[in-house]
């Protein structure tokens, strides 16, 4: 399935922990969705969360930018530290946090606005641009980093909803990048895309690694192997195994990881 040589050769460039989670538990009403998860996510690294449906990987992802706060019945306990600051501390404003920890969703969700306004949305809210020219520059830079500039540069005033699915998803990535986050969370960003658009987005993720730490939830093990340096395997709400992607895929320590990777559970 995988080219072992390629995986073993892959180097992890950075060792500094950007995000550190300790004893994280999540309850949805009476359901215990996440059980005592500890994980360290490195800076300038792509970390993949894999696991069968309903294992809690998306839920854990949504803890990192406190999106679970928007769900009434969700209750999060434990500590998640970003740059050694506990994001569940009382003095942390979740709104500010989300500007720092961007998120890309499973289904492309451009706003019913023009392409330009979609990208300018975040910078405008956070006052990142001093002038119109400044904003123009941010929009262009973000669209370029989203690898979609060439396709939309002539129709920035066209509605973002008129783009194709793959373009919409890259627009959403560009939109997330525009607020200059330090961490980018991606919740199955390719599940609604065709193979060509998927390849484009994967290439983009690899480029984003130069500046951000990226956390990606995916159902495709090939994708996890292709884009990530670290992989975490979740099962039934617990973090079963976490390590170098090459090691997880070639030499899993846990029986359940091996079963999942070889397709026996899922």
């Amino acid at each position, binding site marked *: 399935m995988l080219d072992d040589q390629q995986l073993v050769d892959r180097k992890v460039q950075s060792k500094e922990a950007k995000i550190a989670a300790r004893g994280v538990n999540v309850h949805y009403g009476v359901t215990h969705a996440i059980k005592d998860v500890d994980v360290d996510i490195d800076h300038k690294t792509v970390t993949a969360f894999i696991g069968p449906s309903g294992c809690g990987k998306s839920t854990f992802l949504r803890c990192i930018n406190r*999106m679970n706060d928007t769900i009434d019945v969700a209750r999060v306990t434990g500590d998640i530290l970003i740059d050694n600051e506990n994001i569940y501390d009382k003095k942390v404003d979740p709104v500010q*946090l989300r*500007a720092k920890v*961007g998120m890309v*969703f499973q289904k492309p969700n451009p*706003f*019913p606005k023009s392409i330009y306004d979609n990208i300018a949305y975040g910078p405008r809210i956070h006052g990142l641009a001093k002038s119109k020219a400044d904003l123009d520059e941010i929009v262009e830079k973000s669209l370029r980093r989203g690898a979609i500039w060439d396709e939309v540069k002539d129709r920035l005033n066209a509605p973002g909803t008129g783009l194709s699915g793959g373009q919409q998803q890259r627009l959403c990535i560009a939109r997330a990048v525009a*607020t200059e986050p330090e961490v980018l969370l991606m919740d199955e960003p390719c599940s609604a895309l065709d193979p060509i658009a998927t390849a484009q987005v994967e290439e983009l993720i690899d480029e984003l690694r130069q500046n951000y730490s990226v956390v990606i939830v995916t159902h495709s093990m090939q994708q996890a192997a292709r884009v990530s340096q670290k992989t975490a395997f979740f099962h039934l709400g617990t973090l079963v195994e976490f390590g170098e992607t090459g090691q997880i895929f070639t030499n899993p320590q846990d029986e359940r990881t091996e079963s999942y990777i070889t397709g026996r559970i899922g």
Partner: protein
Amino acid sequence: MSAFWLLLLVLGIALVSYVLGRGRALSSAGGDIRNLHSLPVYYGANAALFVLIPSLILLMLWMVAQPLVVGARVQASIPAEAVSEGSTIGLVMSDVRRVADGLDLAVAQGVIEPSYATTSDTNLTEVRERLGDVGVALGSDISVTVLTAAQLLRETNASWYFWRTVLVVALALAGLGYAYSMTQKDFRARNTVERVILYLLIGAASIAILTTVGILFSLIFNTVEFFRIYPASEFFFSLTWSPSFGGGSELGILPLLWGTFYISLIALLVAVPIGLLSAIYLSEYASPAVRSIAKPLLEVLAGIPTIVYGLFALLTVGPFLVSFFGQNGHFGVNWMAGGTAVMTAGLVMGIMLIPFVSSLSDDIINAVPQAMRDGSLGLGATKSETIKQVVLPAALPGIVGAILLAASRAIGETMIVVLGAGAAARLSMNPFDAMTTVTAKIVSQLTGDSDFASPEALVAFALGMTLFVITLGLNVFALYIVRKYREQYE
């Protein structure tokens, strides 16, 4: 045979046909349902429909045609000189019908013999007496001609009734025979029955549309009649509304349109902000528990009859406003002469419209996908920024549609205006003056003893027509807006 019994007879034949058709289908399949194309009920239903549809259509057409044809024939038999000076053939015919009905009644009650009612040399005074006994009072001007015509009418009708029964029953039986003959196991009864159901649905849908067209035509004819006796330019551009049934009225629509517009404007100024803000609270901020209580409570407002709102305006809001803006009021401004005013009616109507705006807007805001909110929140926007910049723009077309629907409700409202705004047609900018609206004037022009041929009464139809066109235009515009932007976030 009366139409009712004939109907029962046809239904009976249909029932027989159902049983026969079902039985024949089953026997043709050797009693095994699996060999049939359709379930047995479909064969039965198919046979019953073949009985019902042609015969009922014939019965219906006959019931429409018979009075026309028979009436025309009897009318032709009346000699022209029998119509006296100053009378019309129509009046004579209505006498004829009354006498014929009286004779029917008398025969039915056994006061006179059936043969007596048909003999032509009947004593006129005696007939009048006998009919008086059963409660049919005839005027003294009933002539022999009328009596003869009435007798002709009865005779012709009797023979038509006979043929109606014969033909309808024959058609029903023919339907039965035809359906029975084609029923066998390979016949596609299910498809036939379903096609009939389709036509039934189409028919139901057309009734609503045809009714609208019918309303429109009834308005058009009277409106055309009105414009024949009253100049259209005066109606549309005169600034005075002063109908007087003695003649010499001025019937300008402008003061009424202004009143309608002014009151609706105030109503919308009240209803739109309050309705919209409460919709935002209910859909975005309220907890499910609060929402489940508050939303029905708000919708109770929509269930209050408008006459109750009118009373509220008359007895509570009007005096309350006078105590502030009237003579010796708290503000000492003396703008308001009495409790009935544009402001009174507008405020109360606004309260009435709140649930329209809030309930529709709430549904529309809820229909904005959660993914939009997540996308905005995920970029570090606050909840209120998300609502202002993403949710409301996405919901805007629907909200505009809701507001326009509320506006057409406001324009058509009558009772609150009658009780709250007064009856004076006036062109004034002061919202504390009494004014009136188109709908309120339609009511006052048509109530009481008015001659339906006078412009003062007919103007009501022209007013109604104008209102109809305005609200129709608003509704079409609302639908257009809603449709045009509907798929924006889909």
